């Protein structure tokens, strides 16, 4: 199958704002100027249904940005909004996948995936249907009754994604979910993420330090500066919605990655030199 690489139709222009950060800053520690200014002020406007990645050097506040949007952290200044409502605690309809293994070791894969649904009052038949779907979708069918300790890191991360997926979130936030996985597994997980994104029509925000991952997966990539993190560039990739990891052989993939690196190189140097 050849991948059509025509730029996306103009649908993005009319897409509405799904989630938004306005002037968000986050300072850790005392606010009298001696605290660590980790982030911002940043503005971010996620369009409904887009795949947006954030890349930046270590410690630039990428994860903090996600925490603020997820309602897991309060901004020091500025506002976070989801579907027009101010974010206060994790909003309904938002799902988060963390970098660390967050599977519940005391539950089987199936019970892990069903965890959120079982406490949300969904009836048993519907739970079974959605869990079957998510387990099948993430390739976990053969491991349904296994416990996380019996699975590899990649498999456990699939469990976490499936557990988020069954809740049918409209906004999926991923905080370096493949950071702990090897390169091949990461590419394949990237494919699954794209498939998931297409099927669910969810908006996706992916935090990553892997430029190739950002270039391959995203509609738009936000490049952040060294601390305090600010957006220094937002890049439109122009990939079609129907894409997979094979686009890495397309010339534009190389161009995009090179462009991202050019933007990031100076910032990464700053981080390395500890300024």
């Amino acid at each position, binding site marked *: 199958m050849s991948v059509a690489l025509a730029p996306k139709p103009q649908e993005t222009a009319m897409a509405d704002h799904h989630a938004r950060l306005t002037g968000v800053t986050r300072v850790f520690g005392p606010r009298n100027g001696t605290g660590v200014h980790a982030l911002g002020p940043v503005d971010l406007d996620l369009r409904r249904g887009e795949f947006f990645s954030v890349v930046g050097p270590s410690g630039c506040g990428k994860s903090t940005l996600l925490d603020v949007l997820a309602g*897991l952290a309060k901004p020091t200044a500025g506002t976070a909004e989801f579907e027009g409502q101010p974010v206060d605690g*994790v909003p309904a309809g938002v799902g988060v996948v963390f970098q660390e293994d*967050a599977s*519940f*070791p005391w539950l089987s894969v199936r019970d892990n995936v069903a*965890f959120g649904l079982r*406490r949300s009052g969904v009836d048993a038949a519907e739970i079974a249907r959605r869990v079957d779907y998510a387990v099948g979708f993430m390739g976990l069918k053969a491991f349904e009754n296994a416990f*996380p300790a019996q699975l590899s890191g990649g498999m456990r991360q699939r469990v976490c994604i499936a557990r988020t997926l069954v809740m049918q979130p409209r906004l999926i936030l991923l905080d370096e979910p493949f950071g702990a996985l090897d390169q091949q597994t990461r590419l394949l997980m990237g494919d699954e993420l794209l498939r998931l994104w297409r099927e669910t029509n969810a908006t996706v925000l992916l935090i990553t330090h892997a430029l190739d991952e950002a270039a391959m997966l995203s509609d738009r990539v936000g490049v952040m500066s060294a601390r305090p993190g600010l957006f220094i560039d937002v890049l439109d990739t122009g990939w079609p919605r129907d894409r997979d990891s094979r686009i890495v052989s397309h010339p534009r993939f190389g161009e995009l990655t090179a462009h991202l690196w050019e933007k990031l190189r100076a910032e990464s140097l700053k981080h390395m030199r500890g300024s």
Partner: protein
Amino acid sequence: MAASHPALNPATWIRLAVIAGAVAALEIACRMGWVPMTIVIPPSAMVGSLVELLLSGTYGRDIAVSFSNVALSAALAVVLGFAIGVILHALPPVRGAVEPLLASYYAVPTFMFYPVFIILFGVGSGAIIAIAVLLAIVAMITATLNGLDRIPPVLTKTARMFRMHPAERALKISLPAAMPYLFTGVKLSVAYAFIGVIASEFILSGAGIGYAIAYAYNNFNNRTMYGLMLLIVLAVTLINSALDVVDRRLQSRLRR
């Protein structure tokens, strides 16, 4: 998962062989007269004595008293120790002040306080349970603190993502996440409760297996004394093996 079932493990066979060898050696030593019967009776005679005393029912009440005291002490130590652990975990300044005391707690020979407990509770189960609980509770407090410390922060974040209330989070996330560590506390509490109860019965009781052993000893009744000792050894082994099965199950899920 553990590589194989423990029963199939060569180490298990070797361990059983060592025990069997030691028992056989003692049997031979006693039968040959190398060890006088006034000191140790042969293991086969211990078994015979145990069977007799169980069948005769003479010690039924002592056995019931000891085991119910152990059960009650262990249960109290687990419940109170868990509660105190949770409270200390929630109050870091208090914990910081108390933790060094907990760490050196087992340097204090708790049994020396027995006169105090006799004054407080009189001779009998009350004083025995007090000593046993005092002996067992700190193991449970320490295990609870350790378990709560080891809950991965990402699980707490996950609970927030699922928008769980604190009570629900405690029950559905914190408790199962800490369970393998809590269970270590349960195991230790049971062991300490046994030690506390049986040892206390020697000094401050008129009933119980410990009392019965002391009574048999004072009357030169070696046969009964060893039969009762065997009873305790077997009971402790059985209970500990059962707890171990649960423990191994919990630990195998923990390995990440």
